[in-house]
């Protein structure tokens, strides 16, 4: 874990309200793994007060850079969107427990919306290791399939689904999973509704879910980012996650 004054190298619009930021943050890039995240201070003022967690979408150790892909939702991400190349930005990371590749099974990555970000880093790792990888990605409409360019750059094929049918399958991305789970391990990131469906569809197929929660500290100190553990009790998303084995967590209760 490092606290680094990173430099913004790029911060460009990918699609409506979606951006791609490249940060020069060599200390963090040196150790970030797939599915880990950084905790950013979007600006200097008291409002919004807290840092914002964003997944590492790509990591280039040689160049010392990180790529973040984010959706502008509220004030924090809006402040982030204001940052220009050359600006400094205070970054804590890498944080959390990332994906663990299951040996022997082909990784099938299931992305919903901007949830594609952590899965790009997993695809990148697979490519680095020379492992086959399959990706299905969903979004509301074609232009919001914001991971495509990075995946293409990695040479990874992606099967798409859109709510409005403007690209690929018309319907939820989970509609692409039917009959495709044999010999696969699932790695999913996206909205809670989608993750819950992946959890249900997975059955005996090993699945890992990248989960979100509001975070204060991001390092396990405040116990604020609890999610429900299957069988009772809670898990901390920031240190025990954000990537959980599907059977560890539950969306019920």
């Amino acid at each position: 874990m490092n606290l680094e004054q990173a430099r913004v190298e790029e911060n460009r619009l990918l699609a409506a309200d979606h951006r791609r930021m490249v940060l020069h943050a060599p200390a963090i890039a040196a150790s970030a793994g797939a599915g880990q995240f950084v905790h950013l201070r979007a600006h200097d003022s008291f409002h919004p007060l807290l840092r914002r967690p964003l997944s590492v979408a790509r990591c280039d150790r040689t160049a010392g850079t990180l790529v973040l892909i984010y959706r502008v939702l509220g004030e924090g991400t809006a402040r982030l969107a204001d940052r220009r190349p050359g600006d400094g930005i205070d970054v804590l990371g890498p944080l959390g427990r990332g994906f663990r590749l299951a040996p022997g099974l082909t990784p099938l990555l299931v992305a919903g919306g901007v949830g594609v970000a952590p899965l790009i880093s997993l695809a990148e790792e697979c490519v680095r290791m020379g492992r086959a990888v399959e990706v299905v990605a969903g979004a509301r409409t074609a232009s919001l399939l914001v991971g495509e360019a990075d995946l293409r750059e990695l040479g990874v094929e992606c099967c798409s689904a859109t709510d409005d049918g403007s690209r690929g399958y018309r319907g939820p991305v989970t509609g692409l999973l039917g009959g495709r789970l044999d010999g696969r391990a699932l790695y999913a990131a996206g909205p809670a509704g989608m993750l819950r469906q992946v959890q249900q569809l997975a059955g005996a197929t090993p699945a890992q879910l990248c989960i979100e929660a509001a975070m204060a500290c991001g390092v396990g100190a405040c116990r604020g980012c609890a999610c429900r553990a299957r069988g009772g009790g809670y898990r901390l998303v920031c240190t025990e996650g954000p990537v959980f084995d599907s059977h560890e967590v539950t969306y019920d209760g």
Partner: protein
Amino acid sequence: MADLAVNLAGIRLRNPVLAASGTFGYGREYAAVVPLDQIGGVITKGTSLEAWTGNPPPRTVETAAGMLNAIGLENPGLKHLVEADLPWLASQGATVVVNVVGRTVDEYVAVAEALDARPAVAGLELNVSCPNVDKGGMAFGVHPESAYALVRAVRKRTRLPLLVKLTPNVTDIVRIAEQVRDAGADGLSAVNTLVGMAIDIHCRRPVLGNATGGLSGPAIKPVALAAVWRLARVGLPILGGGGISFWQDAVEFLMAGATAVAVGTATFVRPRAMLEIAQGMEEYLKCQGIERITDLVGAANPGARTG
């Protein structure tokens, strides 16, 4: 070099900037970026006799210049503290104050007693002010009688320096503090969070799983400072806190009558905030030609008996 060392109610601190309970875990979490032997001390997460599971999520939400939390005192319990955390904290050279919670007087007493002879523990902070649990917590801190009884019972079983952490959610904090003093506390810790809430208008329900939570951060600084200002007349040393972000804030608390300060939410925002605050204070003392930080205690408060 200016002298930042203080003695807070019998707890010797290398500088007057401590990590507030519940915002710094057990020291490990931030240790990679905050050397524990460079801050005044670590106040642990509220620790109970047995492990507590805490409240259902969501547990935090941001508000204007602040945040609400309803953690519900999730903690791994006394045994874990003693076996896993205290030895490690000692190895880091940390000055450790244990924040103690319980559902009953007996639970508080049991924790205090178990820690009494431990050299790794420099003092106790009795949490009678957590707004996020049904039993215990704030229930003890809002009534002068129950505060007195609890402190008295704990006092009998520990020789450790005993701070009592007060809640601002009362009509007369001075009256509670006087009871706490008369029951044998060595110092006051002021303040814990203010009761607050946020509503999710789309879902038409409270944002927090526990409905209400505790407000912390810059938003509450004026309220916390006014509490310290009033408490300074009670005559016990005060650990002040609530919304401290920068060294200037810390100096305000000292001038109001605090001997040392606790920094919480600011650490989430700027993990090295405590170090920056201690350093800022040191430079301030140098510029002003003040030799000891203790000279500032109560400097703006004619009613202070703590300076």
